[in-house]
């Protein structure tokens, strides 16, 4: 098992994530796992109950999870948002911009390469849920 990477100060959530279908059926789960084809918006009325949302990336080229993450953060979700599966070091920076704050990659990520990638771009061109000020805002105050 490859060690997860977290950008959060709270303790790791221990309860295993259940499938979306199972979560919508039961009232006591606090962690859910969503697949690329599943609608993240179904979770919006239930975000208060959730401490962990695990967004699955079966293949790194399937970018649906980026939109799922943005939708959840736009809806105000503050808990752990974890990208798991085929997550590669060169995807982590964009995932961070979409609101992911934890990573459970199938294959180990070189943390030195990741740190370099995360620190590389000083500015960004567009607004996302990471709330960094886009370049147009820097230009116009």
């Amino acid at each position, binding site marked *: 098992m490859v060690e997860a990477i977290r950008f959060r100060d709270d303790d790791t959530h221990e309860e295993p994530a259940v499938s979306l279908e199972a979560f919508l059926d039961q009232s006591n789960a606090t962690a859910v796992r969503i697949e*690329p084809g599943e609608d993240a918006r179904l979770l919006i009325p239930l975000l208060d109950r959730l401490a962990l949302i695990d967004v699955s990336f079966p293949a*790194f*080229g*399937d*970018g*649906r999870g*980026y*939109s*799922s993450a*943005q939708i959840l953060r*736009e809806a105000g979700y503050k808990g752990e948002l974890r990208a798991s599966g085929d997550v*590669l070091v*060169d*995807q982590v*920076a*964009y*995932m961070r*911009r*979409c609101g992911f704050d934890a990573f459970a990659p199938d294959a180990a990520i*070189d943390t030195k*390469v990741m740190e*370099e*990638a995360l620190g*590389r*771009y*000083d*500015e*960004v*061109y*567009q*607004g*996302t849920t990471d709330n960094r000020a*886009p*370049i*147009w*805002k*820097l*230009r*116009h105050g």
Partner: protein
Amino acid sequence: MYQYDKYDQQMVDTRVAEFRDQVERRLAGELTEDQFKPLRLMNGLYLQLHAYMLRVAIPYGTLNGKQMRMLGHIARKYDRDYGHFTTRQNIQYNWIKLEDAPDILADLASVEMHAIQTSGNCIRNISSDQYAGAAADEIADPRPWAEILRQWSSFHPEFSYLPRKFKIAVIASDEDRAAMRLHDIGIQLVHKDGELGAKFFVGGGMGRTPMIAPEIRDFVPADELISYAEACLRVYNRYGRRDNKYKARIKILVHELGKEEYTRQVEEEFAHMKTLGLNPPVEELARISEYFADPAFDTNASDDLDLSDPDFNLWVDQNTEKHKQAGYAIAVISLKPTSGIPGDASSAQIDLMADLAEQYSFDELRVTHSQNIVLPHVKKSDLYTLWQKLDEAGLAPANLDLITDSIACPGLDYCSLANARSIPLAQKISERFADLGRQRELGELKLKISGCINACGHHHAGHIGILGVDRKGTENYQLLLGGSAAEDTSLAKITGPGFDEDGVIDAIETVTDLYLKERQEDERFIDTYRRVGMAAFKEAIYG
């Protein structure tokens, strides 16, 4: 034209450093080819049949002399002394070494250029009208809007792993010179109640399943442009098909959902997006627009032209277009000489075009989607000298929009996807129809050649289209008629069984002969075809 500020420059410089690091990791074996592929693709680097191909972005097809000269330098230093201008208003180099790629990107960054997102399943280089800022019929310059979109789409974290590539075009006149409705998103600037805004068409494209984009919104205000585009993209990213790469473009989603349902979903997303503060203020559009202000035209320039030199007269008639400023013309440099490779230019030709732009066109050039180069602002009194200099360098074929001004994809000579060669066919056709008098007699005739069904040569949109296929191991060419990429957008239809190389050229002669026989008054080929119908042409070809 637009100039980078410190932020833009920092972004491209950082990209060079990032890609240098990724190439080093690839060369050191830390990245597999599978892992490296999406990274190199987002920097325009393809692995072709014989070598790497690098595609350099020319945003909305506009560049200055210094940038053009750098393109010549790259051709000389890193390639085989030529470059190939593409149907996406870009340039590509076919013989690049992986280890040179970071240095090339650094050279490009030194003149405010890059190869960011010129390939991969992301938002590609934004294209536009090649006559923007010069055309007499535009309501505004579309390029500031294209630049807003360029910045927004660059390094977009949510939309970098889309189901498939994504192309956006922006125009600002009723005449469509950019094949706008054959893009994933086509935007036409329009006025509504005195305000300038964007009309959105979504779901056009060529490829295996050509579609003309339907209009999905008649007006998006300037300060909501980005949130509307985000809404279009998010619906696509979430629901576009990923099970089959040939059904993954947004045109299939729009087609399968239906325009109404896709629009409904976009509007729902847009209502939400509008609340997120994603749109730059109108001051940003104003800031960018200042860079596209008119150059200092001589308002006393004369419209008189001495056309006593018959060859010059032909070139002026065929290759210049009406400029919005009296005393000026738009001059088109054809990269389609007889027996030439459509869109190719040598480093010496590229350098010369850079010089001529600086001398005669306020330091501006454009690349057209039909693979020619435009000098947008030439004083009429300079046209004769300009033409002489072009002619000496083999850059004055007077064939704009004629049958030999063909579009051709790289085809089997370079491309790993191709089934048939496109370039030699284009060359042979240019030889068969070399007589300029005959070409002019045939008039406007858009000939477009693709070497496989992916349609990079836009064969669906040709008045005459040719599609190369593989038939039991031999190259075979299907003939199509009746397409158009202009404001009267239509898709060409296949005439019938295919031909070998000489056979398809004979068939083209047959259909052009029939056109000459059937045409009424000043009908173009496409007009006659539409009036007469396919059956008569079929009959002429197949008997």
